[in-house]
């Protein structure tokens, strides 16, 4: 279970949010809303542990993630604004490297398979540099198909994707939630879930959010 306790984040001189508290259990999806600059990305990065919050803490099963360190990273898959893939490497190479770093053994065939599922058939062994924005995003998201981590944090995962890919990603997210996974995401699209619970969190001008 992920618990956010009294979280406060300050960027520059601006207090983005304070006293933020919510929890997320298995099989739940949290949809973050908020206008541009309201601190959605900051909140997500704080939950990942990339940003040290000014006050409060993020707890995983009751323990502060700072204390868990790399243990927590095993539970987490993060897709940020930047794709996190190397332009000079091919899709398969990118995927396999990121899997080895995540500590999961993935055979070459499985990596090809994941990319094919993402709709990249025929582009698997091209350098990512020659792919379009949307295709790069697909390479980056292919990780999710191979990941076993329960908590997914997706920052605007649908940007640059075409309709078919958006639909596919929605099913992937939905089936992850159904398998008792947790998802936190920001997007301007509606995500439909068949089972599990969707929570909405609005980050607003007052800086306070509630579920």
């Amino acid at each position, binding site marked *: 279970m992920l618990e956010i306790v009294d979280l406060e984040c300050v960027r520059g001189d601006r207090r983005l949010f304070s006293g933020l508290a919510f929890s997320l259990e298995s099989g739940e999806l949290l949809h973050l809303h908020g206008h541009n600059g309201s601190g959605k990305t900051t909140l997500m990065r704080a939950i*990942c*542990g*990339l*940003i*040290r919050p000014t006050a409060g803490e993020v707890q995983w099963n009751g323990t502060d993630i700072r204390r868990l360190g*790399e*243990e927590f*990273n*095993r539970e*987490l898959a*993060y897709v*940020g*604004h*930047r*794709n*996190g*893939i*190397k*332009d*000079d*490497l091919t899709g398969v*190479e990118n995927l396999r*490297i*990121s899997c*080895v*770093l*995540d*500590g999961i053994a993935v055979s070459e065939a499985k990596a090809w398979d994941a990319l094919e599922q993402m709709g990249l058939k025929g582009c698997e062994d091209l*350098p990512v540099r020659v792919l379009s924005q949307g295709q790069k995003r697909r390479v980056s998201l292919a990780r999710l198909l191979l990941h076993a981590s329960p908590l997914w944090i997706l920052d605007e995962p649908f940007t640059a994707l075409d309709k078919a890919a958006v639909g596919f990603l929605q099913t992937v997210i939905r089936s992850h939630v159904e398998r008792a996974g947790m998802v936190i995401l920001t997007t301007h699209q509606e995500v439909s879930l068949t089972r599990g619970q969707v929570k909405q969190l609005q980050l607003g001008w007052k800086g306070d959010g509630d579920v």
Partner: protein
Amino acid sequence: MFEAFLIIVRRDITLAMRRRSDLFTTLFFFVIVVSLFPLGIGPEMNTLRLIAPGVVWVAALLASMLALERLFAADFEDGTLEQMLLVPQPLSLLVLGKVTAHWLVTGLPLAIVAPLLGLQYDLSPEALGVLVVSLLLGTPALSLIGAIGAALTLGLRGGGVLVSLLVLPLCIPVLIFGAGAVEANVSGLGEQGHLSMLGALLVLSLLFSPLAASAALRISAE
């Protein structure tokens, strides 16, 4: 865990091989700077022999500064660094992997061409051997120390100059004992002591620099 180290080394070497222009800038910088001195000073053998260790070592130091800027910058820009901070592996191990690959493509070539360049300075074969050994021990230490500076200045504007200002003072001991080893050999004093000190510096930086650099990376990535 060791697998992660290896894959980072392999990844960075592959990337360097696919972008060879970056690779050669460091090496050619080194070759040109070292070759300029005999041309500028003239064929005075005694003077050249005297300045050789210092010139080669200063050039190696500057060449390794030149390459430092790129150590983490590319990974920072495309977001792969962010992903590295979020994998269940010790970050210092990944940093060590990056530094190892960086040394293999920028430091090792310097040590390999050094004897060729040393010929311009009329160094004896024995002194050339010591030069290579001192570079083999010293350049990894330079890369390791430099990694701390590169991590600290990540994402700053004008980071390149700042790295040099931060790192060069820390590299002075390596320079002194590296050039000292060759000088000691030329003057017949024996290079053993200097090389031992270089080895000690290498071990010390091997222990502390990955830790310091990964702490710096976490701060820079915020």
